[in-house]
């Protein structure tokens, strides 16, 4: 099976032209485009059932609540979660990590403890721990990388000494590397540590099953998986989430409030203070339906094929002039291509590409420790998704040479 060839027609944004060129969107690792069904689902919510959830007894309030809870159930199924009550809605993956750090970390971490992360983490899985570490005095320890952009797990047993939490990305947003989460989770569990996973680049692109991954906690965001911005997910094993104290306080997250205190609500509402982003949750539910209808195995196969095509096309054309960071085998990586072309600065490269309607990200990709490891200040990153095809890759390949003529030193 493969993805429908006319998939672009489902994404209204992709029909426009930029600077006289058909848009070539290659920045889905930053944010994906939205299909009509997602835009319509949110539109429809506002036009027909807009009301606050978990409050009113009237019909549209009940319908809004039902639509939101259906979305929660869809997400649970999508990631293989045993229960919809384990799906906590947050603002984004960053908030999910802050929730874990503040709630679990605040309760469980002290001066003699260690949190183990890696050199390829996004700032979202670094800075919340650093902030907490400054308060609690625990050690933040880093798994190094191998030269070809994998985690160097040769010293993992030693690194795990004293560790209470391992928090690792399932797929690097810069290198595309897919990490052996199950192997790391098993080792983490063997020393009594919890395993948190950054699924921001993984869940949108590969079939995901939290039980098979061996994760205790999983963070991801809606807008990278055809859903809207402003909605993210924290999944956690019920036992883990139950033991964690509330994060934000306010409405919805309580069962009772008295002058002398409060009783927190049950899962998942304990972690969902205030009116949630209802339209966005419903939109994310529609995105899950859309991806499920494509089939995540086919999504993954499409991206392996296209990544393989891109790696070949770029290296065949440019040889020594181009460096593509991360694993060279498409089956070991996602469709994230961080490129150094000659000595053209990524900012200048992306400016030239923009003139041709090609959207790539230039910068440090919220992964400055990794940039230092790679010895670069920035990269230009092209990232692929369901709607991309060979013509997008060809446009990118064709456009590097003109940038080189202008800027190579």
């Amino acid at each position, binding site marked *: 099976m493969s993805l429908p060839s006319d998939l672009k027609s489902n994404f209204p944004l992709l029909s426009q032209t930029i*600077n006289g060129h058909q848009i070539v969107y290659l920045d889905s690792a930053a944010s994906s485009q939205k299909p009509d069904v997602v835009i319509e689902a949110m539109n429809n919510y506002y036009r027909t059932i807009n009301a606050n959830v978990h409050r009113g007894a009237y019909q549209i309030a009940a319908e809004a609540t039902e639509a939101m809870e259906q979305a929660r159930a869809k997400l649970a199924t999508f990631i293989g979660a045993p229960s919809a009550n384990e799906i906590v809605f947050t603002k984004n993956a960053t908030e999910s990590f802050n929730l874990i750090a503040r709630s679990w970390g605040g309760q469980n971490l002290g001066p003699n403890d260690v949190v183990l992360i890696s050199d390829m983490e996004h700032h979202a899985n670094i800075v919340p721990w650093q902030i907490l570490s400054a308060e609690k005095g625990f050690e933040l320890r880093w798994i190094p990388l191998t030269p070809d952009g994998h985690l160097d797990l040769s010293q993992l047993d030693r690194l795990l000494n004293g560790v209470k939490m391992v928090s690792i990305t399932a797929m690097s947003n810069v290198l595309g590397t897919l990490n052996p989460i199950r192997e790391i989770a098993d080792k983490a569990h063997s020393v009594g540590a919890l395993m948190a996973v950054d699924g921001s680049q993984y869940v949108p692109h590969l079939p995901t099953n939290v039980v098979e991954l061996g994760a205790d906690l999983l963070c991801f965001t809606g807008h990278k998986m055809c859903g809207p911005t402003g909605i993210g997910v924290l999944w956690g094993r019920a036992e883990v989430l139950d033991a964690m104290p509330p994060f934000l306080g306010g409405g919805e997250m309580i069962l009772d409030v008295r002058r002398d205190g409060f009783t927190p609500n049950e899962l998942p509402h304990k972690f969902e203070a205030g009116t949630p982003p209802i339209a966005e949750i419903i939109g994310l539910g529609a995105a899950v339906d859309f991806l499920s209808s494509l089939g995540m195995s086919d999504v993954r196969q499409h991206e392996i094929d296209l990544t393989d095509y891109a790696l070949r096309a770029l290296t065949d054309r440019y040889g020594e002039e181009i460096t593509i960071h991360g694993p060279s085998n498409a089956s070991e990586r996602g469709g994230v291509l961080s490129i150094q072309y000659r000595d053209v*600065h*990524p*900012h*200048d490269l992306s*400016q*030239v590409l923009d*003139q041709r309607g090609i959207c790539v990200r*230039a*910068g*440090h990709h919220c992964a*400055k420790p990794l*940039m230092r490891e790679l010895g670069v*200040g*920035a990269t230009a990153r092209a990232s692929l998704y369901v709607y991309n095809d060979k013509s997008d890759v060809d446009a990118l390949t064709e456009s590097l040479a003109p940038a080189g003529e*202008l*800027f190579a*030193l």
Partner: protein
Amino acid sequence: MAGLEDLYKEIIIDHYRNPRNRGELDSPPAHKTEGFNPLCGDEVLLTFALKGEIIEELLISGQGCSISQASASMMSAAVQGKSIGEVRDLTRQFKAMMSIHEESIGADDPPPGDGHAFELGDLEALKGVVKFPVRIKCATLSWNTLLTGLDELEV
């Protein structure tokens, strides 16, 4: 629609390919100040020597895109031999060209400049950056870094 030729003037490419005043002075005695553009990871390190109120020498190191490097190179040429007050005036003028208008720049309560208006010369070539708002921060990085360095002298 602004085209690439509005942004990448020949003289900008020249300063990018052949940056002026590259390097580092020994500090101390030279003053040293560092700036970052968190958006794109560009870094600039300025070292400068003062003789009284006059910037006698200023060298630049770091790395970045053509706009940030060319702007830094042009700035290094423009500020040598100017007084601190003149440099503040020139910076204000340059940032105004970048559509950044400030009552005060740099520190909360900076010493006033001397009110000079300068010929911008090569710096005029950066005017096109205004049409590319994302790149304004690239063009102003070295200038803001220098202001920070001058502010540090005042405290």
